[in-house]
């Protein structure tokens, strides 16, 4: 029933981790949503590819950091590193008038070297160029938003967007890969030969 298992020419990437915390000066009571964007050679085989966190608030012990501690757990299968999965995060929260507005979008590639990684990504929101529109959007609580958050993981068509970065989200990843080396891919320096001065003897073998 479950679509697991590999095959020839397939490697697996298992990602465990959590959306640890956020830093958004001046904002409080935020929640975040995550999803993954990946190429067409990629298929999730286990776990969840999207999730929505609780609403978290600042406290006396952490006046600047918002802790979500929200778990991520997903396994991908692919034949080709191209289109390596990216996690897309969007953060929302109420504004001064209680309207639910967006506080930031951000994305980062899932690390591909096995082990534990921590990534802090900048979060930004689209911004209007005209001052009038900026004011009305503040007043009506209708801030501009990306029609689909996944656009922040794409390299195309970004030249038209103007954004304002206003916070950070810290994510930790635990990455396990399988068969990626078997397919001939070198993802970390240790995969290659350990650095060594070529000794003349070795060369003279030929």
């Amino acid at each position, binding site marked *: 029933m479950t679509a697991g298992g590999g095959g020839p020419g397939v490697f697996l990437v298992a990602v465990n981790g959590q959306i640890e915390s956020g830093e958004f*000066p001046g904002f409080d009571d935020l929640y975040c949503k995550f999803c993954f964007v990946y*190429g067409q050679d990629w298929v999730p085989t286990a776990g969840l590819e999207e999730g929505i966190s609780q609403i978290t608030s600042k406290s006396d012990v952490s006046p600047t950091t918002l802790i979500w501690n929200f778990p991520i757990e997903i396994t991908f299968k692919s034949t*080709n*590193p*191209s*289109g*390596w999965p*990216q996690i897309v995060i969007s953060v929302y929260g109420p504004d001064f008038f209680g309207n639910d507005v967006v506080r930031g979008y*951000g*994305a*980062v*590639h899932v*690390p*591909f*070297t096995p082990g534990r*990684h921590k990534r802090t*990504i*900048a979060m*930004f929101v689209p*911004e209007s*160029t005209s001052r009038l529109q900026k004011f009305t959007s503040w007043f009506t609580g209708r801030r501009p938003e990306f029609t689909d958050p996944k656009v*922040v*993981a*794409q*390299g*195309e068509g*970004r*030249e038209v*967007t*103007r*954004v*304002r*970065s*206003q916070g950070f989200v810290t994510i930790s990843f635990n990455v396990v890969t399988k068969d990626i080396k078997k*397919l*001939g*891919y*070198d*993802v*970390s*320096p240790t*995969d*290659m*030969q350990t*650095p060594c001065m070529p000794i003349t003897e070795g060369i003279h073998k030929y």
Partner: protein
Amino acid sequence: MAELHVIGQLVGASGFPQRRLFCKWGLHAGSAWKLLEGLREGQTQVDDPQAGDMAYWCHPIDVHYATKGLQGWPKLHLEVWHQDSLGRSELLGYGFCHVPSTPGCHALTCVTWRPRGTWGERLSRFWLGGGPQLLAPDPAYAADRFRLRTEAAGTVRLQLGLILRHFERYGVQC
């Protein structure tokens, strides 16, 4: 043929006199290299940071090359621009850097510079912006850089991951 995947992000830039920045970027590789997948060039969003002097772009890069030689290893070409509140753009810095050749994750900083004009041009730049630009901004230009008078600009931060394949099959150690 050996394969090279460059996966990562143009993170952002700092150290420029202005804050509202964007970046035009391109990857250039020699004739032995063939681009199989991915975008070879692009332009980031314009970021106006709320705090601090670092502008963040989070611009993804994911390219897949095949190559039959080491010559012409891909180079990254960056142009940092400022967009003012009227939507006009001004060049702030050029940067060229090699794509790393070691597999794994690399947090890179690429320093940038911009052509320096005459006294008069510098004065008008101070008041009005603008300034001289390169005629042919490509890394091949590196050969006759000595004609150029430049000044130091800011730095661009990159997060690049490298996946290599089959290089060791041809006796290459990276």
